[in-house]
């Protein structure tokens, strides 16, 4: 019936569907959100729009505004009232914005004549899927080509009490009550970003870390991010690994929970009481229950992710995959969008441009933001050898921080250069305010082959952190 059926209406799925429709193809998009154990669900748009980047950045902004209010008095602003934060007002405003985005996506799919079904789809035989609508009716659809863009969902601990009493990022951004004293389990960027803005809003936050912070990122930068959070009130409990259980002590919004865990090292048992426990230990690909085995699509059994070639094609020629579910690729919205668009153009527009996964810039929106593009120092040393690298680094004090007397030895930037390649910049890392805005421009420069010399020759804009 269709030229293309896309399973998943997130960043990747929607971008691919719209591009294919523009190229004149008959496209269907299926998007369905299995509710969380606590019943949370959301509309069209995927993780980024509903329970990821968008609400995260808005809550991060709310926390930054709290800090700005504190700084403002030093800049001469005078006001009597005690400033406090109302969680419900913030969540309502954010959810209203997300609602408008969900609607906007529906309108844009309709405008491009893409068929959209808010239903669960699974493969039943080659080229054919079964779709179960909310009211129970089952329909079947066929297509020449399929794209898997089902994304991921948060992983749970697998201990008594985790699904019943704990929340994840899927629940946090629409939580109808303030989470209160919170324990964040995990040291991923999701864990640290959430812990960061919750603390910034005035809550008592503890982060429980099994081993290292921000796995996959430059570790020197990761430790600096963590150190800043610690000096600003976030408690860290490190090297605690084995969770035993979570019990509910008291009902309520929020209630009171008791967490019991023990260390991998010694016999010590840890017990703590919190209003909310937020689990952020990783995300699992949604590939297990969509019938992939019926049509022979191979997945990586360890993590559920889909291996693809550099055309984003799976082992089954008419099935492609994009976004977070790809094995070994970056889990970022702009990457999924780019991959989706380029895939549609290669399939239907006669293009041969493939998605470039090298030197993709990213930013971790912890209270002190960390932007990077290129290699982490450890990876660069591994790939090039320490003697072939030159690392330039500096601490800096943002001008805006001087008046309010904020830290003068925390913001930090470093670049890693390859000596044998004209001192080409192969790694860029910056820890400071507006790191995302700063990093974006440098990413374009790196794509153009930025070298240390070119950087030195570029005159700075004064006074900025970027200079």
């Amino acid at each position, binding site marked *: 019936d269709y030229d293309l059926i896309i399973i998943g209406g997130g960043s990747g799925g929607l971008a691919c569907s719209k591009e294919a429709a523009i190229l004149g193809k008959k496209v269907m998009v299926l998007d369905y959100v299995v509710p969380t154990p606590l019943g949370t669900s959301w509309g069209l748009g995927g993780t980024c729009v509903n329970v990821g980047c968008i609400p995260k950045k808005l809550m991060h902004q709310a926390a930054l505004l709290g800090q700005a209010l504190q700084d403002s008095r030093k800049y001469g602003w005078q006001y009597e009232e005690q400033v406090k934060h109302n969680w419900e007002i913030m969540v309502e405003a954010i959810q209203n*914005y997300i609602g408008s985005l969900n609607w906007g996506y529906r*309108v844009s799919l309709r*405008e491009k004549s893409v068929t959209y079904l808010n239903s669960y789809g699974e493969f039943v035989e080659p080229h054919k899927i079964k779709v179960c609508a909310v009211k129970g009716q089952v329909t079947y659809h066929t297509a020449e080509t399929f794209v898997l863009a089902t994304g991921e969902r948060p992983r749970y601990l697998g201990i008594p009490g985790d699904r019943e009493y704990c929340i994840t990022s899927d629940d946090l951004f629409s939580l109808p009550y303030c989470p209160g004293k919170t324990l964040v389990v995990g040291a991923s960027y999701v864990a640290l970003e959430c812990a960061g803005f919750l603390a910034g809003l005035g809550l008592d936050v503890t982060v429980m870390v099994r081993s290292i912070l921000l796995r996959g990122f430059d570790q020197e930068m990761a430790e600096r991010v963590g150190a800043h959070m610690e000096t600003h009130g976030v408690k860290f409990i490190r090297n605690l690994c084995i969770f035993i259980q979570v019990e509910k002590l008291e009902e309520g919004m929020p209630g009171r929970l008791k967490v019991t865990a023990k260390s991998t090292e010694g016999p010590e048992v840890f017990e703590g009481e919190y209003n909310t426990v937020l689990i952020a230990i990783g995300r699992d690909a949604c590939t297990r229950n969509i019938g992939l085995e019926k049509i022979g699509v191979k997945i990586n059994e360890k993590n559920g992710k889909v291996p693809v070639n550099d055309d984003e094609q799976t082992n089954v020629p008419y099935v492609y995959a994009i976004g977070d579910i790809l094995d070994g690729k970056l889990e970022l919205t702009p990457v999924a969008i780019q991959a989706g668009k380029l895939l549609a153009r290669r399939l239907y527009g006669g293009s041969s441009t493939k998605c470039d996964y090298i030197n993709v810039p990213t930013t971790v929106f912890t209270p002190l933001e960390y932007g990077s593009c290129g290699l982490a120092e450890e990876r660069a040393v591994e790939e090039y050898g320490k003697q072939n690298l030159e690392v330039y680094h500096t601490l800096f004090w943002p001008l805006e921080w001087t008046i309010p007397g904020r830290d003068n030895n925390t913001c930090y930037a470093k670049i890693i250069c390859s000596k044998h390649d004209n001192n080409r910049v192969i790694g860029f890392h910056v820890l400071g305010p507006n790191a995302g805005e700063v990093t974006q421009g440098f990413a374009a420069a790196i794509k153009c082959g930025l070298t240390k010399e070119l950087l030195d020759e570029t005159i700075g804009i004064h006074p900025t952190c970027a200079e």
Partner: protein
Amino acid sequence: GRALATPAGCGSTFNVQDGSDFQDRVVNNPKPVVVDFHAQWCGPCKILGPRLEKMVAKQEGKVLMAKVDIDDHTDLAIEYEVSAVPTVLAMKNGDVVDKFVGIKDEDQLEAFLKKLIGA
């Protein structure tokens, strides 16, 4: 305000329940009906809604008002090509004879309603 007894029942404003309710009470209504397409997440809708209701009530039963939540009744919203909210349609004998998108003040709303009734 006063509740006027009209052939349709109680008062001049009602929430549309589903597609067939829309057919019965809006499309097949002998009286003209303004349809207010709105959404929970839409700030301006929360201002326009009550304002429009007030002006409709002032017309003393000559025009009725139907409210449609676009997330609950997406098919209807799509059928009537609603992209932004609030969108207000003026319907007479099942046809859309007028429309506007966004907020209007009381005078503008009164003119809109009078035109619908008069035409």
